[in-house]
């Protein structure tokens, strides 16, 4: 793992967390959408918070696909679950929301899970694919 790859993982967390938060904030302004009028969900993209949120989620998708091009799915998903902790910490210290002891336990478990997977190799495959010479890292693939 080099600095660029850590930056891509951080990008997934950053774009995903901020994008979700922007969408959530925007949908609270738009209000509840009835199941009888699902079409009105299309007009919700005119809300500026939702529009910016969608741009962030495009950034999330680009960084997510970049990470999957050199890392395993079972590495990327747990490693980027730190976004849940990121949101909870923002909620606690910036928005001054209350976090119950059960939620703190959840944060500890996620952090431990991220620590477990981050300490290992990002790819378990040794074959090169797709015409690029450095498609997959072979570091640490042997037991």
């Amino acid at each position: 793992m080099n600095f660029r790859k850590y930056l891509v993982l951080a990008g997934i967390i950053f774009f995903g967390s901020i994008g979700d938060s922007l969408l959530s904030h925007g949908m609270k302004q738009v209000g509840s959408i009835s199941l009888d009028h699902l079409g009105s969900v299309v007009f919700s993209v005119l809300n500026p918070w939702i529009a910016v949120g969608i741009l962030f989620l495009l950034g999330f998708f680009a960084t997510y696909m970049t990470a999957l091009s050199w890392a395993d799915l079972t590495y990327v998903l747990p490693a980027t679950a730190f976004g849940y902790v990121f949101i909870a910490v923002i909620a606690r210290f910036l928005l001054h929301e209350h976090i119950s002891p059960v939620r703190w336990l959840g944060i500890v478990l996620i952090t431990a899970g991220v620590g477990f997977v981050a300490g290992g190799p990002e790819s378990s495959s040794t074959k090169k694919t797709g015409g690029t010479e450095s498609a997959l890292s072979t570091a640490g693939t042997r037991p």
Partner: protein
Amino acid sequence: MTHFYAWLGVFLIVVTSTTGDCLLARAMKQVGDLGALRKQRGIAQTILRVLRTPSLMLGIAFMALSFFSLLFALSWGDVSMVGPASASLTFVANAFAAKLFLHERVDRRRWTAAVFVAAGVFLLAG
């Protein structure tokens, strides 16, 4: 019956989301390291190469199905049940699917990480 439909929705979310993730992962493995590809062929060729991968579009279609499954589940169940249950089960299902279909080496470290993160997400979102 309401409970049954809510859990059916959770099941659909987990299946479609896991399938979508696996298809996206397979597509990107076929493409190869995007950073290296961009250096060799430029950004336009890299984007074209990604878009021409069939499993990518299929993966995106399953992601869309997952979104509609979420809407279905939320119409029958509480968000406090649907959200944590689907998110945490998806982490574990992805570990199984990656081992079975992508032939990833899911060692004890990764199983532990998947279970810890799944339990943590359940507690955090619950």
